């Protein structure tokens, strides 16, 4: 139903969000773990939000993928290029809700960043991280991004902007 591309890494597949992802996405967004990414959200809100994630691809020409392990199609996270109307610039974002601590966010984040640089031809990227989301900061740091400024978002509140190395310097 969409022409969203699929990316493959050593351990992961990044594919288009699909109706089968609704339960996993809803479980994540109902949990306290979603507090840094706009949650918790109700089941109704999460369903609409998943629609939005898909619609973003059409509206922007890029977007976020559901992340799965190579041998299991169950979604373990949402990672990709995100630029809603009220974002200062396009970001690479990640959240992994299953199998955390194994470097999946970094691996998927790198794949998304590579896609931005190598396929879309972008020359810069940020990650917008809600203040206090230390796990996400660690991922950004591992990818070589550095904190460059603060941003106040009307919904998410205080955010930190991490700028990634460009295409030539990426870590």
């Amino acid at each position, binding site marked *: *139903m969409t022409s969203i591309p699929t990316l493959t890494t050593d351990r992961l597949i990044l594919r*288009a969000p699909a109706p089968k992802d609704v339960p996993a996405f809803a479980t994540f967004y109902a949990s306290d773990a979603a507090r840094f990414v706009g949650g918790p959200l109700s089941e109704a809100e999460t369903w609409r939000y998943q629609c939005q994630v*898909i*619609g973003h691809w*059409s509206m922007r020409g890029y977007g976020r993928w559901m992340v799965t392990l190579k041998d299991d199609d169950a979604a373990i996270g949402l990672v990709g290029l995100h630029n*809603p*109307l009220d974002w200062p610039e396009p970001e690479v974002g990640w959240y992994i809700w299953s199998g955390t601590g194994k470097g999946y966010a970094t691996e998927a984040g790198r794949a998304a960043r590579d896609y931005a640089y190598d396929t879309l031809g972008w020359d810069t990227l940020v990650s917008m991280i809600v203040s206090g989301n230390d796990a996400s900061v660690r991922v950004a740091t591992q990818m070589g991004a550095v904190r460059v400024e603060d941003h106040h978002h009307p919904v998410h509140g205080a955010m930190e902007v991490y700028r990634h190395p460009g295409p030539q310097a990426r870590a």
Partner: protein
Amino acid sequence: MITVTGTPTLTTDRLTLRAPHPGDLAAFIAFYATDRSHFTGGPKTLREAWNYFGTQIGHWVMRGYGMFVLTRTGDDTALGIVGHWHPNTWPEREIGWVLFDAADEGQGIAFEAAQACISHAYDTLNWTTAVSYIAAENTASIALAERLGASLDTKATPPPSTIPALVYRHLSPSLISKNPPRRAGQPQAQPSTKGAQGATSTNVSSRASASAGSPTGGAR
């Protein structure tokens, strides 16, 4: 370009109903900035309207059907949205309609579009029933539902909504085929299927005003 693929295009005598694409954003956002949108979940801020447009596109992928952008055949300008809507917490599948601009009312456009959507629901999507959720104060939309042959179903459950909704149940497929509702001089809608696509580009046209469709307050 990333597109939603496989969405049908419906055509009637005067209208073309096609999948939403980014070129429709400005009209959509302008409508949702007005009070005219209050029966259909508005008014919405720019941010909310942008996100909600994304929801409308994504609904097509999540459900395999969704809301069309309503245009006059030969002029791609978005006049409104009409189609098939079923968020996951809603009790039933809905046929909804919205005309952005009051100036487009009174010409049977919403009727013609909604009729095509009812036919599509029954003939192509194989629905066996369909409802429209309408705010009690939305008299224009209630009148349209009744003109389409729908009647108030007091036993049905309305969706969760900030504005209480009435449930209008459309004629069943067998009744539609025996007694198709039509306006004088208007042949029945003839849905046709063509490939459609989302696209990338932005055109600005500003229109606004609600009319019909589903009420559902903040829910939509």
